[in-house]
């Protein structure tokens, strides 16, 4: 048949045939507008890398008292998926990573991806202590301790794992949410706050961070994000 007729036929089938309905879920990620990245950023990176649309809902602290009782556990981030709600930053990240091919190729790789994400979760929790300290002198001391006690040994351990895996990625032979999580924490937080000196003996980790930073979808997201939501330092 003529091309024109062919396409007209397909077109009308798409309109009338319900099985052609495209069912990409409607995602809404809810978080504070400050910190602008914080515990929601990993999920935003996963969405961006996977090329999945999402509504990036950010609210002010003055709005929080009204929003809080509507959340499952009085906390954010939360993810709305077609109206159903999921809480806990890592549960959200894990769900999205698995759904969009960023969680490794099998159950063991999924577990390794989880492990690295949970490492970062612990580091974020440890960083929260100095972060919350009000006294500037004490804060400086706590951050110093954090860098020498917590970060230094973890960087050594991760470098060893990267060397052992020998693919340039943390898990298997491909990018996973684990790489995104390490990029987010070490680049967006540590490097911004303390500079890159801590990476001088970790060339593999440094290379991974730089590689993630340069991924087209990640670059697109961070450029958009940094202009729309500049982070306070």
């Amino acid at each position, binding site marked *: 048949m003529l091309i024109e007729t062919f396409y007209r036929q397909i077109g009308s089938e798409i309109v009338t045939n319900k099985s052609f309905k495209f069912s990409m879920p409607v995602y809404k990620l809810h978080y504070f507008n400050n910190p602008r990245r914080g515990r929601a950023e990993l999920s935003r990176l996963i969405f961006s890398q996977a090329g999945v649309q999402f509504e990036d809902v950010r609210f002010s602290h003055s709005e929080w008292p009204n929003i809080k009782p509507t959340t*499952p*556990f*009085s906390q954010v981030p939360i993810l709305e*998926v077609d109206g*159903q709600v*999921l*809480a*806990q*930053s*890592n*549960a*959200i990240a*894990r*769900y999205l990573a*698995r*759904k969009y091919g960023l969680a490794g190729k099998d*159950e*063991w790789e*999924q*577990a*390794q991806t*989880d*492990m690295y994400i*949970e*490492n970062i979760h612990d580091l974020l*929790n440890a960083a929260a202590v100095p972060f919350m300290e009000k006294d500037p002198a004490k804060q400086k001391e706590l951050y110093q301790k954090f860098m020498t006690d917590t970060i230094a*040994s*973890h960087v050594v*351990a*991760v470098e060893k*794992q990267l060397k052992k895996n020998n693919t340039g990625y943390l898990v298997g032979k491909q990018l996973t949410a684990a790489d995104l999580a390490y990029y987010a924490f070490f680049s967006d937080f540590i490097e911004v706050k303390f500079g890159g000196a801590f990476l001088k003996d970790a060339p593999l980790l440094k290379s991974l961070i730089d590689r993630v930073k340069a991924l087209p979808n990640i670059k697109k997201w961070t450029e958009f994000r940094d202009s729309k939501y500049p982070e306070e330092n």
Partner: protein
Amino acid sequence: MPGYKLYYFNVRGRGELSRLILHYAGVPFDDFRFEGKDWPAFKSKMPFGQVPVLEVDGEKMLAQSHTIARYLARQHGLAGQNDWEQSQADMYVDCIYDLHGAMRTPTWETDPVKQKELFDKVNQDTIQPHLEKVEQHLVKNGGGHLVGQGLTWADIAYYAYFTTPIMTRLGGEVLTKAPHLKKLIETVGNNPNIQKYVETRPVTSG
């Protein structure tokens, strides 16, 4: 059946959830416990200098307590019936992770008076508000289980948290306003495999 070896201190702590999952599922494993003085020798063997660690078939190692528990739950049918249920179970266990963190300071306090004070504060500030929400969700889900219509590792995680030594000693009233959760925890505890393990496990301080 893969060969599992779970490395951890001789306490319940962050290793217990995985032990309970394996016992519940009837899966044999090497429950390898070491004393504090032996830790330095093992520390360097562990991927991130921490335990628990799960060694599978003598070669692959997995760190992070909840990653291990999640992997075992998934391998042995205790993680939920579909992706959404699995993520809901994850969500609940992530909440337990936060509650563990909150209970760390009271757990390590040696002075009994100060310990009770710290415990009561954590209970009031963190546990009770959380339980109010959990009880609501539990009732909405039909009252039986946290996720879906069957037992998941989320139910086991809540059982583990609310039966720790400190909770048993100081937390008598903690579940008073959460009767459905209390009943769920009792149900998990009454499982024959869990009972058998609990009766024979080492008595430890934490």
